[in-house]
């Protein structure tokens, strides 16, 4: 069954008709040609499809596009301001935070969303005092980024990139 939806994708309003079975990820990639979010596992386990959905990091493979009519989506490709890269993108380049690059757009969106969560004072599983200010240690970065898998194993440099972007 079809539904008409409108999405704001990387600053551009996009209207399309989708089969209700279409995931947000497939709508972005296959229907709108927005190839920045990647399909890894397609079951919410790898984080490659992570975008900023109405400003918060979210997987897009377990969401039906029809349920997000009117949503604002920022992909990793939409984070740059013209030719000026986002500080998290710059840091990934500077620290070699990737090898093949397939998981990188998801890693970068996740990192941007995660840094906002830290700024808002949200605790994590490794935060000892739930009511104190969060200190972004490497343990905190690793825990908060555990939803993004990297088969190349670039984790050490991903942590370094996020540490650099946060400082």
């Amino acid at each position, binding site marked *: 069954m079809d539904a008409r939806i409108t999405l704001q994708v990387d600053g551009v309003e996009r209207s399309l008709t989708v089969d209700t079975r279409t995931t947000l990820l497939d709508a972005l990639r296959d229907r709108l040609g927005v190839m920045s979010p990647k399909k890894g596992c397609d*079951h919410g386990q790898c984080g490659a499809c992570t975008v900023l959905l109405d400003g*918060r990091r*979210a997987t897009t493979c*377990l969401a039906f596009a029809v349920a997000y009519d009117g949503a604002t989506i920022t992909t990793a490709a939409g984070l740059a301001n013209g030719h000026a890269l986002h500080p998290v993108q710059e840091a990934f380049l500077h620290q070699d935070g990737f090898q093949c690059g397939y998981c990188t757009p998801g890693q970068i969106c996740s990192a941007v*969303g995660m840094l906002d969560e830290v700024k808002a004072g*949200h605790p994590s599983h490794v935060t000892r005092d*739930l009511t104190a200010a969060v200190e972004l240690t490497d343990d905190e970065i*690793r825990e908060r980024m555990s*939803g993004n898998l990297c088969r190349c194993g670039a984790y050490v440099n991903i942590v370094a990139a996020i540490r650099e972007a946060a400082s």
Partner: protein
Amino acid sequence: MNPFAYERAADAAGAVARVAGHPGAAFLGAGTNLVDHMKLGIAHPELLVDVTRLPFDRVEERQGGGVRIGAAVRNSDLAAHPLIRSRYPLLAQALLAGASGQLRNLATTGGNLLQRTRCVYFQDVTTPCNKRAPGTGCSAIDGYTRDHAILGASEHCVAVHPSDMAVAMAALDAVLVVLGKAGERRIPLVDFHRLPGDAPDRDTVLEHGELITAVELPDLPFATRSAYRKVRDRASYAFALVSVAAALDLRDGTVRDVRLALGGVAHKPWRAVRAEAALRGAPATPESFRRAADAELADAKPLRDNAFKVPMARNTIVAVLRDLAMEKGR
């Protein structure tokens, strides 16, 4: 995936009427479990009624104490809420131990309670499973049972409930507010999930068309001394082998009151009533904690691959209670 119609609910009563009146209908929350089940061929709804925009997105203090959590509150927002962090640390910790940051930003309170087991046989439609296809048999019992139940299982199903949040809520005596065609009813969380018995296809006592609208937490001042500990195969982003939610009320070295629940061991969040009874009035010592854990686990029936869960549960209970007993009074 089968074709389905999608509707965005305008109000709760209308959503309930719509789903209750259609045997093939289901409520749609964030979908982090349901959409996966539709992809895997486990669920085949013909109509999805999206309830994420209903006005159940608030966490509020209740008159007379306690907190009311709207069913649409996202897991990340609940974990970060000042009322939960300060008064019910075990619940914040349980939420933060579950899933990943980008999933917690989507997953709702009601949906978390209704997520289904991650038993690999349940999730594989090519294998028999009494939960997915009643009467076909249980592939797990004679299969690989490392992740399965040690308490309360039946010959028909040995699956475990996957939620962390629900374990903390079981310890807190949470009450679910449920809206049905006949109106509202309240269900204690410990009675909400079922043991498998001979009907493992029914995870909960919810009737078709009933909608969880809120979770109420009673006031529990001593929950400031509480914790959730999860033991798993990786440090993060994995389901529990065993988990423990506990709150401890101490006076002069004696356990005045206690709340204890286990995850990863049963078809439902397992409220450890026997251990609690053994602890009340006992000295807050490792010996008491061990005796209480043993009392709870006396009926444990491990399967071929999960005998390790018995000592793991015992050791985790003792460690959590010991650490809580050593915390400075709050």
